[in-house]
Structure formats: structure tokens, C-alpha cells
């Protein structure tokens, strides 16, 4: 009787070299090392060359005095005492301002035009089509020049401003309106506003539950509006109207005081909004067309009118197709805002990659920072849109 040897062969134990898993790791590590070496050598090479050419390097300039002024600034900034680092934040905030307002406005306009293009109203559909075709087929830079000149040229000069009701003035220096000055008691109004907002949300959730249980519908919109407007207003009057206005006054050249919206900002905002809306309109149209016609017919058969059909049946399904390309349009808008440099709007590129780069001469550092900022903004936008997309996506069971 022979015995079978109990020793079984252990695969891979013979040689680590032939273990596919370990080989895989080895190659990954090797690749990482190569990439790391490439980055390191490029960086050290750049530093070496900068030194050889006697060009200043490093980030020491960040705390140096800037010595120039910027007209539109969301944080205090002046030639006396502000640094290049603060100039960076001024530019960054201006970029974020125009990009965020532009994203909101272009979404509304784009949805409207996209839906209009599918409208059964012939005139409306054709107008929407012309809009999309014209806007999408002209270079954005050209459109910005057009808007800048279209905004600027027809307006009167500062001494002959168009006076609008409520101490609002319009001239070729922009739109100047009363600047609200908040008294200390105004905090109560802010608190009331947030309370009202919470109450509105709570009511909305409650009413949805009620509707699901009993089928009874509540006028949600009206009640929300009433809460959010009404409660702060009541508190405002109870607190003794703690709000005053700094009114614009006619100076020798310009109106002084007040809150000024600069024409460069308006031109850039209109240009970016209308341009991106053209693309969003097509994305929306594609999304709606992707929803099978049977869905609309089924909704009609259930007796839903055109409005609720669109709102409750078509759009929610279309959103799944719309969101991914919509995200890339948002990213495009943000990146396109750097064309501001052509019309004198002080965005990040204009202030930081323009003036600061030129005054310090540190192109490598300044451009690297600027690229990192745009990358960060884009990635953060993508992240939020991906989260939203996940919520809207078809739940697969």
C-alpha cells in the first residue's frame, strides 16, 4: 500500500516573481516611481534654470506690497498696504462671483430656451432655434466685445445719468444704486429669515406626507413665500426699521457713494450667460427628447395638463440625461470667465496672472497657482454635480 504524499504544492510560494498579484503591485510602484521622478526632475530643472537666469523664485512675493488698485473688489483692497496675496483673493472672489451668478442665470435661460425649442408654438420654437444657432456659432470673445460695447456705448456719461426710481442711476460707469447700511438690530431680521426658512421646509415635508396619506394638496408655494417674506418683514418693523441707505450723490466726475455694478461685470455676465445658455438649451432639448413619447401620452391619458406633465413626468426623467453634459457646461462657463481679461473685468487671470505676474516676474509660480485654482474649482463643481447626479439617477434594484 502506498501513501499519497500529504505535501501539496502551494501555488506562488515557489517564487514571488511569478505571483501575478505581486507583479501587478511591482509594476504599479515602478510606474509611480517613474512619474514621481519625472515630476521631481522637471521641478528641480526649472528651479536650476531660474537660478542660472537670475530670475527670482519661490513664494516670498505673496506677502509683498502690491502697490496697485483694483476697481471691483469684494474684500478691502487698496494700493496702500495690501499684498499680492490679497490681490489673489480679490481676483479669485471676482471669478467665483461671475461664475456662480452666470451658472444660475444660464441654467434658467438654457432650460427656458431648450423647452421653447420643442414648443408647439411655431414662432417661439423658431426664435429659440435662431438663438441657439447664432449664439453657439460665434466665438465667445467676439460676443464679449459685442456686449461690452453694446452695454457701454449707448449709455449716457456720468453727468447725464438716467435716473431710475428709487435713487438708482444708470450711466456708462455702470449701475449705481443705494448701498444698504445695516443697523445692529438688523440681526433680528436675519434670524427671523432663517427661522422662516426652517418653518417653510418643515411645512413642506409635513404637507408632502399629508398629501401621500390623504391626497390633499396644500398651496406650498404661497405659504413658503408668505413665511419667508412675512416673518422678517414683521420683525423688521418691530425692531424699528434698522436699515438705512447710502444714496449716490452727483460728484464732479462720477456719482459718489452708493453701490456700483461695473459695466465690465455686466458685459461679462451677459456674455457668459447667453453663450452657455445656448449650449444648455441643446442639452435640455436632447434630454427631453430622450424621454419616450409614451410617457407623455400616458400622462395625458391620466388627465394631466401640459404643465404638470412636463414638470412631474418628463423633466425628472430627462434630468438623468441632462446632468452629465450640464456639468461640463458649468465647467466651461467657469473657465471661459477668464476671457474677462479682454474687457477689463478684474478676475483671477486679469489681476493675478496679469498684473501680479508682471510686477513680480514670477511666471512659473503665478501660473502654477492659477492652474491649481481652476483645477480645484472644476473638481469641486464636478463633485457636487456627481452627488446630485447620483441622487437623480435611476435606482436599480
Amino acid at each position: 500500500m502506498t501513501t499519497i504524499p500529504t505535501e501539496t504544492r502551494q501555488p506562488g510560494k515557489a517564487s514571488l516573481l511569478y505571483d501575478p498579484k505581486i507583479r501587478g503591485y511591482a509594476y504599479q510602484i515602478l510606474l509611480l516611481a517613474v512619474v514621481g521622478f519625472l515630476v521631481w526632475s522637471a521641478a528641480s530643472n526649472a528651479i536650476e534654470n531660474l537660478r542660472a537666469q537670475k530670475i527670482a523664485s519661490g513664494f516670498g512675493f505673496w506677502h509683498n506690497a502690491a502697490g496697485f488698485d483694483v476697481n471691483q473688489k469684494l474684500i478691502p483692497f487698496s494700493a496702500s498696504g495690501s499684498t499680492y496675496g490679497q490681490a489673489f483673493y480679490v481676483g479669485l472672489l471676482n471669478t467665483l462671483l461671475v461664475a456662480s451668478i452666470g451658472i444660475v442665470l444660464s441654467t434658467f435661460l438654457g432650460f427656458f430656451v431648450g423647452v421653447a425649442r420643442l414648443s408647439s408654438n411655431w414662432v417661439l420654437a423658431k426664435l429659440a432655434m435662431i438663438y441657439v444657432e447664432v449664439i453657439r456659432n460665434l466665438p465667445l470673445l467676439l460676443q464679449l466685445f459685442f456686449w461690452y460695447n453694446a452695454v457701454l456705448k449707448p449709455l449716457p456719461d456720468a453727468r447725464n445719468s438716467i435716473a431710475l426710481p428709487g435713487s438708482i442711476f444708470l450711466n456708462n460707469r455702470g449701475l449705481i444704486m443705494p448701498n444698504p447700511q445695516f443697523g445692529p438690530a438688523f440681526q433680528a431680521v436675519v434670524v427671523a429669515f432663517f427661522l422662516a426658512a426652517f418653518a417653510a421646509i418643515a411645512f413642506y415635508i409635513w404637507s408632502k406626507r399629508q398629501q401621500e396619506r390623504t391626497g390633499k394638496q396644500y398651496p406650498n408655494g404661497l405659504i413658503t413665500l408668505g413665511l419667508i417674506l412675512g416673518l422678517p418683514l414683521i420683525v423688521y418693523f418691530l425692531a424699528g426699521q434698522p436699515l438705512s441707505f447710502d444714496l449716490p450723490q452727483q460728484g464732479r466726475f462720477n456719482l459718489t457713494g452708493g453701490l456700483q455694478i461695473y459695466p465690465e461685470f455686466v458685459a461679462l455676465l451677459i456674455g457668459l450667460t447667453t453663450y452657455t445658455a445656448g449650449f444648455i438649451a441643446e442639452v435640455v432639448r436632447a434630454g427631453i427628447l430622450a424621454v419616450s413619447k409614451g410617457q407623455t401620452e400616458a400622462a395625458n391619458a391620466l388627465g394631466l395638463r401640459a404643465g404638470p406633465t412636463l414638470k412631474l413626468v418628463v423633466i425628472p426623467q430627462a434630468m438623468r440625461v441632462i446632468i452629465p453634459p450640464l456639468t461640463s457646461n458649468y465647467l466651461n462657463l467657469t473657465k471661459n470667465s477668464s476671457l474677462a481679461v479682454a474687457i477689463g473685468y478684474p478676475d483671477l487671470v486679469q489681476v493675478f496672472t496679469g498684473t501680479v505676474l508682471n510686477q513680480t516676474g514670477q511666471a512659473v509660480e503665478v501660473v502654477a497657482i492659477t492652474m491649481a485654482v481652476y483645477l480645484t474649482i472644476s473638481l469641486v463643481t464636478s463633485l457636487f454635480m456627481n452627488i446630485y447626479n447620483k441622487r437623480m439617477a435611476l435606482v436599480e434594484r
Partner: protein
Amino acid sequence: MKKFFAAAIAGLGLAVTASAASAQAPSTLAQVKQRNILNCGSNTGLAGFGVPDAQGNWQGLDVEYCRAIAAAIFNDPNKVKFIPLSAKDRFTALQSGEVDVLVRNSTWTMTRDASLGIVFTGVNYYDGQGFMVRKKLGVTSAKQLSGASVCTQQGTTTELNLADYFRANNLKYEVVAFASSDETIKAYDAGRCDAFTTDASGLYAERLKLTAPDDHIVLPEIISKEPLGPSVRNNDSGWFNLVKWVHYAMINAEELGVTKANVDEMLKSPNPEIKRLLGTEGKFGETIGLTPDWVVRIVKHVGNYGESFEKNVGQGSLLKIARGQNGLWTKGGLQYAPPVR
């Protein structure tokens, strides 16, 4: 697979050593000679200093400086490629080697000399910053500009001087900065600003671009020193010397009365200073890598400094700027050249 990685790493190593070695590049003069053309960074369009005419030929005081360098090297003033640069791109273009010399009405400052990796070779035009306003505003002095909007070009010393001036005089203002000079003057013309500011010579040049030049006046204040001159990279002292001495040659030629018209006769001059300048005595040109007759080439093709000045910005031009500070030191101006000896 292993071979592939080995090859990739070897290739990478080679690339890195090659790029490190490139720091030891041949001299700028050798590069220019080998390329057979001079790359000159120039203004995008400033009348009198650097602007292409209707036929596309570049004209101006700065342009002729580059032509003089080309004439000295190649005996041909047309072996220049003009590369128009905006104010904010100019120094980067010079640093990166895109141009051999930057002659683009740039102000010589300490920061630019010390930390940009460039050096200024001299001053070919002494300027100062001024303001232009509409006549109908009734402004007669820059001190009355409190509350005004001012259009300027970004990335310039102008932008900094403007902030300094209004701060020092405790005046309020709004700055509107544009990347290009064309956009700046267009916005001023459209009424976006009350005042337009740049170097005084530039004010006269830009005024010609306005729809109604006569409706605008230049205010009397000059608020800064703007020594405008050429710059080169700070790693080639031979090239620095060459560019510097082209300017001195033109000034010395004017001082000694050597002109485009009489340069051939001057070759026979017994004056030792003229003989040294024109290379009939000594071989001074060779010390900066040129031929002994380098100044003859410059003057024959371009003229002396005074001739170039009058033709481009002086009485022979639309700008009609007086010599003033830019006159020779012998005539009360600031233009002074060390002797050739």
C-alpha cells in the same frame, strides 16, 4: 516588458541630462548669427515707437534700435523679425528666449533689473507719465481729478505710479485696467473713463487713435520718471555690451556730426574720435564681436540718434515731440555716451 521599461528609464535619464545641459547654451550673438535674423520684442502698435505701417513695415524709434543692431551684425537692417508683445507678456517672452532683445518702451526699474532675470542696457527715450482728459470736463490739472475714473494698461509701471500719485495727493479714483493698449484707449474713447494715463509720449501717440483727437487735452503734470530702454537677459554680458554700445554709437555719431548722408566722407576725417568711432583707427568693433566698421553700418542704414529721433517722434513725424530731455548733453539734454577708446 522588462526591456521596454529599461529603455523608457534610459530615455528618461537622457532627457533629463540633456535638459540640464541646455543651461550651457551658446552665446546670444552666436545664436543670432546662426539663425541669420534678430528676434526683436516690439510694441503691438505705438505710433512713433513701434508700429507697422500700411505696407506692414515696422516703423518707430524702438524699431530702428533693433534695425541698428541688425545692421551692426549683418550689415542689413531688414534681418529683424519683430515680435509684437503686450505689456504683460513682454518680460516673459524675453526670459524664455523668444526674443533676443526687448525694445518696447519699457521703463527701467530696480525690480526689473534685479529680480526678473533681465538687465536694461540704457535709456533710448526719457519719458514721464501724464494724463489726458476731455476738454469739456474743464480740468486743467491732475490735482483736480479726485473721484475720476482712470483707464490704464495693466502690468505697467503706469498702473503703480497712478496708485502712488492719487494716494500721495489724497485723491479718490477708480482704476479700470486693460490688458492691451488698444482696449484701453477704446474704452477711454467710449467714455468709460474720465482720464487716460500712460507715458507722455504715448499720450500724444494714442491721441491720434481717438475719434476726435482735438476734443482731448494732455494735462501739464508729469507724475513720474520713465526712463525707457532696451533690455536683454541677465546671463550674457557680451550680448548686453553689444546692445548697449549700439545706442552709444548712435549718440556718439550725432555728437560728432556723423550722419546718414555724410558717413562716407567722414571715413576720411582726420578727427581721431571719428576715426575710432568709424573703425578707421583701432578695432573696437571686434571687442564686442562685430566688425571694425560696425558704426558705419549702423549710421548708413539707420542714421544717428538725432536722425532717428526726428524721423520717428520729432518734427519729421506726426507726434512732433521736442528733443527736450532727449537732446544731447551738449545741448542741455540727458543723452550722453561714454567715448569709444
